[in-house]
């Protein structure tokens, strides 16, 4: 760290400085923490570093990872989306209605879930951009609205997907394992990685991505330069919503049901992953890779503490302290930069 800081100040090493730019450094820091956790748990318990258990971790990260990607976009705009958890559930319920209640083919259910997500995201985006309701309040409202709607639409009961053969294989089975039988990486994890790559491309290589950063850095300047900020904001929230729809499908496929009461609280796990991954809650900076690393830190920590049979009370406490330490480390870095 101190070497890095000195190098940054030295004008003689511009390349190295670029490499150690705040974002890159944060990734290294988060990645280093992840490696430390993996090494620590491997030493602490022989049951940890087993293929089976690594598969468990991949499976456990998928839903939170996808939700965290959705949150990353919104948080970079200096917004927040508290509705991601219940939106995910709502989309799962929509898939349940289309597939189980109406008996339509699977692809229609999948599209309906994604479309419902994007539509709800667009509603949140409109409330934030057009009605000027602060994102925290607008999405808090959406969180409760969607929770209620999920319960109403499902008649308070879980909707099972037993009549849709193949639905559970979206999350549970392993296409990868068909090619590499010794490493059955679950489809849910592969989907997480694919979404992460696509999201990274959108964030770094498209106009939508550029405006996401620009709005988060200085919304007024973007507006004054003639850009239709409202439209881009709605687009960003819609994209986030659509990604939540995908998370809903992954979750429903994993547990073979849409559970209408589930979802509240998941937004906080997603936000934690984003923040651990170095995205600033004040907007303008962040990476998808950081978020994915953040999501893995959360799930490795949870799994590792369980494998070590740490009492559950302590699991919460340790997770909380790790989140604080991660963000504190981030603050230290920013002060030096």
């Amino acid at each position, binding site marked *: 760290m101190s070497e890095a800081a000195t190098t940054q100040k030295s004008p003689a090493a511009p390349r190295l400085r670029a490499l150690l730019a705040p974002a890159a450094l944060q990734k290294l820091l988060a990645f280093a923490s992840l490696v430390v956790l993996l090494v620590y748990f491997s030493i602490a318990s022989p*049951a940890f570093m087993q293929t089976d258990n690594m598969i468990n971790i991949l499976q456990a990260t998928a839903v939170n990872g996808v939700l965290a990607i959705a949150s990353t976009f919104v948080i970079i705009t200096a917004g927040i989306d508290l509705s991601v958890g219940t939106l995910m559930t709502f989309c799962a319920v929509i898939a349940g209605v289309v597939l189980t209640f109406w008996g339509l083919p699977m692809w229609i259910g999948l599209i309906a879930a994604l479309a419902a997500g994007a539509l709800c995201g667009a509603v949140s985006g409109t409330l934030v951009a057009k009605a000027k309701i602060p994102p925290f309040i607008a999405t808090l409202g959406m969180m409760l609205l969607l929770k209620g709607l999920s319960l109403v639409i499902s008649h308070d009961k879980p909707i099972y997907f037993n009549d849709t053969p193949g639905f559970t294989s979206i999350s549970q089975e392993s296409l990868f394992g068909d090619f590499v039988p010794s490493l059955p990486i679950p489809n849910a994890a592969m989907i997480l990685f694919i979404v992460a790559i696509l999201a990274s491309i959108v964030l770094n290589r498209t106009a939508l991505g550029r405006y996401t950063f620009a709005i988060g850095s200085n919304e007024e300047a973007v507006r004054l330069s003639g850009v239709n900020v409202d439209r881009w904001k709605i687009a960003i929230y819609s994209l986030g919503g659509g990604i939540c729809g995908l998370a809903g499908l992954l979750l429903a496929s994993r*547990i073979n*049901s849409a*559970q209408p*009461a589930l979802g509240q609280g998941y937004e906080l796990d997603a936000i934690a992953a984003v923040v651990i991954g170095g995205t600033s809650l004040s907007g303008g900076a962040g990476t998808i890779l950081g978020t994915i690393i953040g999501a893995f830190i959360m799930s490795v920590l949870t799994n590792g503490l369980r494998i*070590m049979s*740490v009492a559950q009370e302590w699991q919460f406490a340790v997770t909380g302290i790790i989140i604080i330490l991660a963000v504190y*480390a981030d603050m230290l870095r920013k002060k030096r930069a």
Partner: protein
Amino acid sequence: MSKKLFLGAALGALLAVGASAPARADETYIPLISKGFQHQFWQAVKLGAEQAAKAANVKITFEGPETEAMVDKQIDMLSAALAKKPTAIGFAALDSQAAIPLLKKAQAAKIPVVAFDSGVDSDIPVTTCTTNNHAAAALAADKMAEAIGDAGEVGVVVHDQTSRTGIDRRDGFLQQMKAKHPKVTVVDVQYGQGDHLKSAEIAKAMLQAHPSLKGIFGANEGSVDGTVIGAKEMGKKIVIIGYDSGKEQKDSIRSGLMLGAITQNPIGIGKCSVDSALKALKGETLPKVVDTGFYWYDKSNIDDPKIAAVLYD
């Protein structure tokens, strides 16, 4: 540099805290995956399991998700428990189907599974240690009818709409009223997530909307404790009947704010889970369901040793 070191050291120290030695290969180890762990009810199940484990000199762990809706978190817990290669597993399913692929994995690895509190839609568990919630709630309905003179309006505050216990207790109460006490009308059924404050608000709203309400049945600890708070804040004297146990419920019954409650036998559920697992390991055949029982308690019998033994704070 020093700050970085400090962070590293703090992290290391943290992880060292609370970590127990990993299970030895020859040790009998039974993880119990519960539906929750914060409520006093689950703590009592845990206590019963620990007592049985101590008596048999085996190692157990006990954990459950933060809320009873978190089906996927419970699955993560179950898969982590399986990764530890346990001798047997105790499992209280939040959803009757979601864990079946994992239970099949346990079966393939010859790890006996004992279901407790809630069953699963599968014949993999060697037995299920549980309360007949439907019959217990019907008893609560009889007691309510008796207390209000078998006629009038009552309300119900339930913890949730989706869990097995929520459904069984609600339906057990409603069906018994309809079948045996036709002059008693249930005017409202509301859900408060078993949260004290939410349930208190619900009770107050019910009392506001139905001024002639004679009684409220709270379907679990949080629901009924909230109902007592709500009635107290409204200054209304109604018949309150609860479910489960806990310090507040016991105090309310002693002080007359609550008429009485149904108690399950959570310590018995915990003991039954561990004992059944040990029996299954010895190759004994077990009944499909072990009814761990339920009791009515009120001011008159709360200190009766037989009742006191199944109550918990």
